[in-house]
């Protein structure tokens, strides 16, 4: 059996760990809402363009979906960071990884907000 150190891995952050757990629980809740409201409530399960446009203009939907996006992207990228930490990157590489993941996260959320407002505008 390999001897393994039980010290915290270099780069692990208490706040990110806590955020990962909180966002994880929120993902479970919001994913359930997302799937019910997307697939079980609309007649065609949002598989038609018209239904999607009607859906995004329903009050509260945009807020729910954008919250879900922020929460799931955060959870995903913090998790990816932990997987990368398993590969024991050097501090320099880790700094680059942190920046790239942050940028991807911001880009994904900005894209989601842009897409949502585009669809709402198409309904008008």
């Amino acid at each position: 059996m390999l001897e393994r150190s039980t010290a915290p891995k270099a780069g692990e952050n208490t706040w990110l760990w806590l955020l990962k757990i909180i966002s994880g629980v929120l993902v479970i809740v919001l994913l359930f809402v997302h799937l019910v409201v997307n697939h079980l409530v609309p007649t065609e399960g949002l598989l038609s363009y018209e239904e999607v446009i009607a859906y995004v203009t329903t009050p509260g939907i945009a807020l729910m979906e954008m919250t879900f996006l922020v929460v799931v992207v955060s959870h995903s990228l913090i998790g990816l960071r932990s997987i990368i930490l398993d590969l024991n990157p050097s501090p320099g590489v880790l700094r680059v990884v942190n920046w790239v993941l942050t940028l991807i996260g911001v880009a994904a959320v900005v894209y989601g907000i842009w897409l949502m407002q585009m669809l709402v505008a198409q309904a008008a």
Partner: protein
Amino acid sequence: MATAQTDPHARSNFWKWFDAFRRAPGMWAYALNRLSAIGLTVYLFMHLIVLRTLTEGPQAYDDFVALVKSPVFVFGELVVVIGGVYHGLNGLRVALTAFGIGVPYQKHMFYAVLIITAVVSLVFGIHMFTA
């Protein structure tokens, strides 16, 4: 005591991640969690990207919907469901034990996770291919 750095039989830090031979049983839970995490992340970003077809008008979106009703894509969605159910349930187990809840039962919880995942996979599999 041979540490990871002085053990002559230890692989380099990078390749150790793929070493399945000397893992304790509980590490499989974590390995599967990591694997499903990667799969779900790939799915997430694909999902976000394809939604862009909605901005290209009704025809583009309807074409895309017709595409994903094909069996290959439906099977892909089933794989995502299985990965998601496992990842979520095991994640809850990890969160609970991290706060000291149910630690003596973590193996039981893991087996429950596997059983529930199997059952849900079966139900969804049948539903997706017969509905």
